[in-house]
């Protein structure tokens, strides 16, 4: 089931047609242009729902990036480590049911990867179009930095575990 022990998938979710809701897809577009370690794969998950299960279960660790509608200021970035579908923020975007279902499904199938979920607060799900609002644009550098930092931390942890095994 798991291809190899240190594989990491960064998956951006969202609807590209609904403004800030699609920020996950924008993040993947940027990461595609940046150098990343060889064990890191990128996926524009769009509004994939059931289509994502095959991708999710192939990786040891999955970093998910998505928009959320909560009462925080637009652009607020939070990192959550959900273990159950119920740990997800309630008001995630239009595709949330798909992702939550997938998490339950992965548990049923005993193929749950380690999940790190970056959620970015947005102001509205009523936006139309492919542009991000200035508040979300302004949060992008910090979000990208945090994703890179998370990847680096995972790499360090994996290297350390490897060394402990070898020793």
């Amino acid at each position, binding site marked *: 089931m798991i291809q190899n022990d240190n594989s990491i998938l960064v998956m951006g979710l969202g609807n590209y047609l609904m403004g800030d809701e699609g920020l996950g897809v924008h993040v993947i577009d940027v990461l595609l242009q940046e150098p990343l370690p060889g064990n890191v794969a990128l996926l*524009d998950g769009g*509004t994939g729902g059931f289509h994502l*299960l095959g991708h999710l279960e192939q990786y040891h660790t999955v970093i998910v990036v998505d928009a959320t509608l909560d009462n925080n200021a637009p652009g607020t970035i939070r990192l959550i480590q959900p273990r159950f579908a119920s740990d997800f923020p309630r008001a995630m975007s*239009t*595709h949330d049911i*798909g992702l939550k*279902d997938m998490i339950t499904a992965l548990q049923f199938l005993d193929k749950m990867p380690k999940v790190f979920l970056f959620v970015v607060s947005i102001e509205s*799900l009523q936006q139309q*179009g492919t542009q991000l609002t200035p508040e979300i644009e302004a949060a992008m550098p910090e979000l990208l930095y945090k994703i890179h930092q998370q990847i680096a931390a995972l790499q360090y942890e994996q290297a350390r575990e490897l060394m402990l095994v070898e020793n």
Partner: protein
Amino acid sequence: MSKRIVVDPITRIEGHLRVEADIENGQIKDAFSSGTMVRLLEEILRGRDPRDAWAFVGRVCGVCTSVHSLTAVRCVEDALDITIPPNAELVRNIMFCAQYMHDHVVHFYHLHAMDWVDVVNALKADPQKTSELAQSISHWPKSSPGYFSDIQTRIKKFVDSGQLGIFANGYWGHPAYKLPAEVNLIGLAHYLEALEWQKEIVKIHAIFGGKNPHPNYLVGGMACAISIDDVSGINAERLAYVGQLLQDGKNFIEQVYIPDLMAIASFYKDWGAIGGGLGNYLVYGDLPANGYKDTKNYKFPGGAILNKDVSKVYDVDVRKDDEVQEFISHSWYEYKEGKDVGLHPWKGESKINYTGPKPPFENLDTTQAYSYLKTPRWKGNAMEVGPLARVLVGYARGREDFKAVVDKALKDLDVPITALFSTLGRTAARGLESVLVAQWAHEFYDQLLTNIKNGDTRMAEMSKFDPATWPKTAQGVGHTEAPRGALAHWINISDEKIANYQLVVPTTWNASPRDSKGQLSAYESALLGTPVANEQQPLEIIRTIHSFDPCMACSVHIYDEEGKHISRIGILEN
């Protein structure tokens, strides 16, 4: 004295559908279906390059992503008079079939089965008896007592932990659940197997479409070069893999889906007389066996049936001004010419005018506009679209393959043909057409291999790709049979850009509000007369609506104003 109950949202997947139903003496007397989210694709597309339309419309939703892209390339090709090479048609057909197999199986097990299968009751099943039953209905190998008891252990762990997840919304123990515990356990076991299986079949989209979700399409053909020995193209290894996936899909449908469907249906024959509704059916037709323009050779023939009369099938022309029209008398839109006219999509307008109550609200004023869905009509008639419409039109057109699967199912269940006009008929039709699609997929696949062996590797017709070759203005229409029913996009191109783009999607046909003449659309009509045993748990409403496989993401053109999407069932005294 009637009571109004509100079910919102009613879907298990994308989107926002709200149903309000008036109940009197335990039966539904009147029903109102409302799309509460708006997504103005038409505005996003205006002014863009027509060759990019497929990429935008493919983003509408994650469920039937590729059928919108297919419809988009077809409408642009129609406008520019482009005929695609046979291989491109075959690859599109194979992707279409893979989409159907995926979508219908996922709908049956993951979005609809729990309306019939009681998960909690499955824990009471005897694994030995379950195994005997499973082996009596199918040769599917996973059927040992140990297999079923292992499934029970896994589910029990979940139920005990309180993390029901996907199963959290069920009305477990409701009196309308009629299956023996052993059938419930088979349904549940196959729910899990289908989860595993569904992720395989969609790989066909990644192979031909470069990625999944949201695979790539191309105006003029497909963007996948055939190169038998090349590691990066569609090579012999990848083609063989597609063949294997199609075979696995066919096996799953024939050995798991259909036996389960028939076993479950045999306990719910009363639903063969509930939820019929309109009796008018519309199919545009799809799966061209001899090119998209040769509509007579579609595997799914087009046509319309009125008043359940299968002795007469009417031809349908999506180009004619007076056939497909959209009305807004009960929709939150406005037309330049007022609320009462119907517009053919080439003249379509999409200006929103929300006049509903300010949220949060208890119920909608259904005498006024009450939905973000427009109301499409065919020659003024309200029509049902989807698997049942396709199976009935294929049957009524005398197609042998349709007759074979339909007659066998009716015989096995020992029900008359009239049982098809129902909630059960809709759910059964979805399974029956899956059998056909799985067979046809192999025909398309074999033809593709034959073409390649004969040296034809053409995959795209690019002579009209350059906008310099286009007329100053052009209009086109592309249609398909999405898993949920007839889907078409209409485009007007002016000075190389999209001047107008209108989508009329299956769920709009089915879930729209009534028209100015008071004619109900398919959901509303199908709910009339449906028994509701417990208003707090309107399982019966959900069964009928789910039998249509509602998916609202593309049919409503934003979110509920408050961004609220908490499941809620409200009851109001009326």
